[in-house]
């Protein structure tokens, strides 16, 4: 299949199993929001896809290729951590070009791609700025531009709106949604915030204790929450 396919995944840390027999599919151009309470296994699932946590059972395939044998650096996955993970000793353009430089892309080609990415995230003219000078929303966009510059086959975002102040959150979320619409890859976004989930998701997966308790569109899940826990998670929408 084109996109991400996870089949019967069991993953955890040594003997402590966090993900129990999880299966999930995210197609190209699809945005899946993964939501769940703390400790539900959201981060472990992301780390399994990235290749940091090794599956004990099951498979993770991307566009038909088994990711299992590949180390993290060869998976070609765009990843935006919660704190954006920007490199403070590099400028905006230095950050965006990092993955390209590592891949041996020529400086001329790097400049072309950096300009294209800056335009994509609406940060034109900011290439020489230092990371410390940027606002939270701008940092997030630099992190996204950097993740997308390598033309990833999958984009993973870990709580992308949690460090954005309430005043600008809606603008940043709107920008994120518009950006997602332009991308031709599967996107998984992790959040514990129901408002973010409602605004950003096409499909929603509720993860509880390492198991996907419910999967579907936001509207369907709000209309028919499968368990009281899910209802509580989505209470503001259900009421």
């Amino acid at each position: 299949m084109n996109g991400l396919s996870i089949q019967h995944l069991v993953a955890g840390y040594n003997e402590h199993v966090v993900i129990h027999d999880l299966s999930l599919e995210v197609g190209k151009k699809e945005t899946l929001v993964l939501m769940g309470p703390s400790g539900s296994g959201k981060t472990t699932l992301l780390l399994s896809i990235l290749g940091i946590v090794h599956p004990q059972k099951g498979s993770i395939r991307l566009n038909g290729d088994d990711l299992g044998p590949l180390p993290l650096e060869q998976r070609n996955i765009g990843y935006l951590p919660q704190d954006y993970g920007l490199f403070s000793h590099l400028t905006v353009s230095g950050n965006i070009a990092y993955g390209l430089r590592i891949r041996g892309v020529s400086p001329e080609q790097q400049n072309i791609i950096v300009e294209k990415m800056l335009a994509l995230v609406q940060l034109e003219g900011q290439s020489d700025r230092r990371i410390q000078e940027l606002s939270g929303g701008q940092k997030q966009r630099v992190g996204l531009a950097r993740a997308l510059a390598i033309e990833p086959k999958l984009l993973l975002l870990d709580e992308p709106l949690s460090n954005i102040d309430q005043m600008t959150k809606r603008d940043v979320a709107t920008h994120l949604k518009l950006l997602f619409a332009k991308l031709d890859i599967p996107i998984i976004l992790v959040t514990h915030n129901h408002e973010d989930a409602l605004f950003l998701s096409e499909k929603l997966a509720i993860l509880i204790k390492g198991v996907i308790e419910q999967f579907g569109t936001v509207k369907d899940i709000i209309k028919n929450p499968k368990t009281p826990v899910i209802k509580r998670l989505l209470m503001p929408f259900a009421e």
Partner: protein
Amino acid sequence: MAQKLSSKNLIVIVYTLATALVLFLLVTILFQYYAALGSWNQVFAAMGNSRILSALWLSITSSIATTIVALIFGIPLAYVFATKQLRGKVVFETLVVDVPQTFPPIADGMIFLLMLGPTSPFHVNLTFTFAALVIAKFFIAAPFVVSTVARRFRDIQTSGIPLTARSLGANPFQVFTTLFLPMSATDIAAGATLCWSRAMGELGGSLIFAGVIPFKTEVLPTFIALDGKTLTAEALAATILGTTASIIALVSFKMITARKNHL
């Protein structure tokens, strides 16, 4: 009212204790210059003494050599401590970082004499050589590089930056060279400065293992240790030269790198 008074008294006590400590440390550091004022001509002339100049030169060069070796070995060790989960790491780190810094001054000299001296089980005799000076200083001073750099490496490791870099295609070695090293430049320089200053002041190992051979292995601390009791102008000159070099190095470094580190 009573609460206000007790709070005010507490602040007075805190400031008094802090001031007393600062005065004690500053007076001790600066007293050598005051002591030299009375016999400045003799002290100044002693600074031109060829034996003292040789001791100063050997102190500086052996400390630089120590610092270079400490950086070559210390940065990789700091990386291992910061990034790897090893069984018994706490004990191991205490042994190789904290224990050498708290060793009784003469003890390491004795150990090196037994280990690398005339009766060495390794059949090498480095006593009374420049290498002995560097080895003795290295044992005491290298941990400053490891501890200072490991602290910064740990901050980087826990920030998630390495994970992001690897998702962008960097292998662990590239993450080390393109992120850990440049993002820790200030801390590496700080560790090197501390290491050099500590090496400049090292005495025990140099005294026992390298010996005190003028123009060959005599450094400022060993010169002071042997001539200091007589309170000669030469001993005072050597003291001033040694401590002033360390003061200038540390203060200049702090001023240059006063900017805050960001992750």
